[in-house]
């Protein structure tokens, strides 16, 4: 056929050569495999910075003095026969439906949870009034990605760190909205009306990622958070208003924590300093987001870590906001 025939010798692969190639390939695979299995978990041990930025706004329960009182609670996950309604213990309208638990700060609530339904469920306690975020570490039993299977169950404990309303929920996305949630009222019921809610996770309705891993990284922010839990009128104002970390994301306005404290009372002639503790640049501009700047004072854009000061020489009520992030508002009362 072809005329470029092989005047030279034909070389063919030899067993030796094949063995050499196999040895090289197996050697690489062995070394790689050792690293692979040796470091299997290491590569998933970190959290992405974007995730820390989100989780940074989650309440960490502060250590509390245990009262020694234990409240055992048994809960069963159940579903209506048409799978439209989910609940704990009993369907809506029946006794013992999503029982409300009352406890005092420091009580140990022991949850004994069983999945008596046909679907997958998972358990957790949160302070948020919707969604599946903000699960308090340690209160959860399994998770949405590794749920409690039908017939299985588990136990967890929850020690409320402060007064307020907590919710025990099914953390599988969607199930809470279908009715799987009950209240835990801690302390005085009137606490409900006070602003004791934690900052909700805002943005997407996705469950907060890997909260269990987050605490070490965000514990630093706790001092500020304990400060803002005090009723507003008692806030000791030091002359510095902090622009809270993460204020560049909408959501801090729900709890008035874009500026901390957001509502202060000072005397004439005192100076207020705003410190930008967020990672983004902000402005402090007198006026309201709807009407714009009224010209009393304006910091213009100042960067993370910088401060801005203004001395108030006249009495009156001054509202101010951030021109870049119009949900950030605050008020200064000068007497």
């Amino acid at each position, binding site marked *: *056929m072809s005329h470029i025939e092989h005047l030279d010798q*034909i070389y063919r692969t030899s067993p030796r050569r094949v063995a050499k190639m196999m040895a090289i390939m197996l050697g690489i695979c062995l070394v790689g495999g050792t690293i692979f299995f040796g470091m299997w978990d290491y590569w998933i041990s970190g959290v992405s910075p974007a995730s820390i930025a989100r989780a940074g706004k989650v309440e960490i329960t502060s250590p509390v003095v245990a009262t020694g009182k234990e409240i055992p609670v048994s809960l069963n996950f159940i579903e209506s026969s048409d799978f439209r309604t989910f609940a704990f213990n009993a369907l809506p309208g029946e006794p013992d439906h999503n029982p409300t638990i009352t406890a005092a700060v420091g009580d140990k609530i022991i949850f004994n949870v069983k999945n008596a339904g046909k679907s997958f469920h998972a358990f957790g306690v949160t302070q948020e009034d919707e969604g599946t975020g903000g699960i308090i570490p340690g209160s959860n039993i399994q998770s949405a990605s590794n749920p409690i299977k039908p017939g299985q169950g588990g136990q967890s404990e929850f020690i409320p760190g402060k007064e307020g309303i907590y919710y025990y929920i099914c953390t599988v996305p969607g199930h809470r909205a279908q009715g799987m949630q009950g209240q835990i009222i801690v302390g005085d019921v009137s606490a409900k009306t006070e602003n004791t809610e934690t900052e909700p996770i805002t943005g*997407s309705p996705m469950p907060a990622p890997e909260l269990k891993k987050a605490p070490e990284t965000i514990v630093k922010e706790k001092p500020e958070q304990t400060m803002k839990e005090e009723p507003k009128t008692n806030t000791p104002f030091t002359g510095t208003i902090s622009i809270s970390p993460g204020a560049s994301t909408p959501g801090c306005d729900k709890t008035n924590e874009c500026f901390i404290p957001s509502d202060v009372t000072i005397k004439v002639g005192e100076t207020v300093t705003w410190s930008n503790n967020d990672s983004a640049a902000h402005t402090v501009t007198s006026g309201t987001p709807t009407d714009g700047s009224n010209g009393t004072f304006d910091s213009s854009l100042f960067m993370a870590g910088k401060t801005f000061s203004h001395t108030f020489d006249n009495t009156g009520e001054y509202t101010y906001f951030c021109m870049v992030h119009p949900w950030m508002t605050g008020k200064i009362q000068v007497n």
Partner: protein
Amino acid sequence: MVLELQKPRPVWQIMFSTHHTDIGLLYIISSLTFLFMGGALALAIRVELFSPGTQFIADSMTFNRIFTVHGTNMIFLFILPFASGVGNYFVPIMVRYKDMAYPKLNAIAFWMIPPAAALIWLGFADFGWYGQPPYSMISSPSPAAEMWIFGLKILGVSSVLGAINFIVTILKCKHPDLPLSKVPLLAWSFLSSSLIVLVAIPTFAAALLMLLTDRLGVTGFFNPALGGDPIAYSHLFWFTFHPEVYVLVIPAIGMMYEIIPRFSRKPIFSHSSGMFAFILLSIVSFASWAHHMFATGMSFTEKTVFMVGTLAAVPASAMHVFNFLATMWGGRAKYSTPMMWAIGGIALFFSAGAGGVVNTAMPLDFITHDSYWVVGHFHLFVFGTIAFGSFGFLYYMFPYITGRMYNEKWGKVHFIITLIGAVLVFFTQHILGLYGMPRRVFDYPPFPAWIEMNQIAGVGAMLLGVGMTIFLVNMIYSSAKGKEANMEDPFGLGGKYYYPYQRKNPHHD
């Protein structure tokens, strides 16, 4: 002998050579290694899903990591490098040039694969081969996700370099006596797929960078909390990866164009229609990306446009199939192993295409969307068509690479077992999807129909495992001790029909 090393050299000389056959050999050996590694992961997935409940993968994280690396590995580390290997062997010979246009660039493109593979395999990320935000951006653990991103980044650069090399080799370095219209269809397939790579890959490269900075918390392109849009990632991703599907399938079709006329002992029915269909495919491949996203709330007009754009690929694909059939028609076909693989590949290509038309029809897409149907469809394409073509071509090249024959009987056994296995796994997965089983789940409720079909698929996967083991043993044993091939006519076809790659450039060596 044409393709083998001109004379025995130390292994390190082959490894660090810049000669196109040496690099082709490296590509093929490494891609086959990754095939077996990724295949092991596939078996793990099927065993875990064999019945409801935990088999041996206890948590969803491990399962997610396994299917992520399985997908990434098979596409980027098996199919693409295998095609590059074949192209490296044959394109210079087919255009009658002494080597690739840029031999060192060629070597660099190959040597980018091992570090990228190390990043992907060691990191073992968990967000699927789509890396879909917001999960991949916020929740996916570090540093696995970053390793995946960088691994794919490197592979993208490697693909672009390889594509440039093929394009320049074919357009600029072909023999002056050889008009472009007479360049064999295998080389044509590399020309068209390389052009697609050049246009498509940069989009995904940009999306990867955006994903990375989003993960670092610096930007919010895909972060809804910062005003970004995860759907934008889907658009960027599929703008690259729908054309990429054609990058994968076009070389496989080119390989079938090489095998079928040879074993039918008849020239190709229509060389020009093959060329035309390649060009048409590479153009319409860019008109269909959003059909992956019909369920993301697109307007009716958008959906209609992309439905029609996707259907535009049907005539081109059908031209190839018709060309194959017309070539075989009236030929004196010899059903050696490569021919069997090619024919099996065509049959499954046709079935996968029929399923593709169903996906394209957007009302039906809403039934099949995100179900096992999609898994079955996709695998029928990449395994049933592309891998079948590749296996066939590997058997076809085998004597030219090693100077020895593979074991014909076991090659046929491999084909039959694999064909049965592929049909059992991937056809069943289509039906499983219609029964509502979602994809990417590591466990499922014990519905009898789901259990049965998962078990059928599990048995099929085991058959594939057996077939691939036979393949591996056959390849290793035959390249060491196989009977010496008759290099004039290894398949006993009578030698009437020329082997274009044997018409070597007089300047070669």
